[in-house]
């Protein structure tokens, strides 16, 4: 399989999971949240001041009333954002490499 096709297919799988499946993910507390609740330190947790302005708090895209499309859009944006950041970082690292002599 050509690399470009592999990249597109794998990215499509990631975006598809984020958009189609994340709205139906379990909303139960995760492992650490559960332990924090059971052992009584959950209330110690708080958002950092700069997280008050987080663009997509709690994986819910703002301005969309229905929670499922809001989560799907958050997944779409986040998956593509991480792809772009990872690709960009790798491209920068590679460009920095000295040319073989």
């Amino acid at each position: 399989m050509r690399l470009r096709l592999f990249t597109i297919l794998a990215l499509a799988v990631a975006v598809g999971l984020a958009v189609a499946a994340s709205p139906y993910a379990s909303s139960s507390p995760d492992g650490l949240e559960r332990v924090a609740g059971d052992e009584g330190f959950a209330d110690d947790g708080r958002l950092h001041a700069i997280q008050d302005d987080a663009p997509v708090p709690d994986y819910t895209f703002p301005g969309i009333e229905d929670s499922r499309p809001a989560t799907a859009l958050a997944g779409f944006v986040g998956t593509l954002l991480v792809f772009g950041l990872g690709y960009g970082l790798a491209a920068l690292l590679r460009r920095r490499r000295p040319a073989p002599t």
Partner: protein
Amino acid sequence: MHIPDGFLSPEVAATTAAVTAGVLAYSLRRADAALDERRVPLVGVTGAFIFAAQMLNFPVAGGTSGHFMGAALAAILLGPWLACLVMAVVLATQAFVFADGGITALGANILNMGVIGALGVGAAMLAARHLLGRAGLRSRGLLLALAGIGAWTAVMAGAAATAFELSISGTVPLGTVLPAMLGVHVLIGVGEAVVTIAAVSAVLATRPDLIAVSDLRPEEIGRPAPGMVTP
């Protein structure tokens, strides 16, 4: 397993952040050796898949959920140094854009969910190559076993590290939090192993040359890539 701000003492947050910063700085120096041209898009794709899969909380016993972590998968696909960097990208994006996981706790979260698993699985891959030689890692079964066991162990090690950090911070006694964290993550780790094996299998079936275990040529790992020209 994302620690929010407020769970860790300033000392523990600063210490874990310093350790993580050191590992990431070293990873930046080591990573470009692993970066042949093929691997540039793979870094982006691996991060994107891990981010997406982390959103998919699956129910485990008793009203608790777990989600994919991804450190073992990243290490198998990208090698340990690029894996540390890609986990840092995922976790920093989650903290700053999605308010998931703390800002002062970001170093601890990258350590627990990224660095420990990535370096542990990386060390296991090196050990396997040392013990079995290059030929040993040509075995598809061995690679998938490494993926499954590595993924489960990475989750348990991350849960244990989280428990130690919480107890040193004075948030909760170790005797309480360590068995609780390990107990709940036994099953979450099984989910991690299933997803990691599935993802490694998919890459083995399509582009086995992208597996970072070694500098093997495509025909040397598992099935050869379809359409590949063999000499």
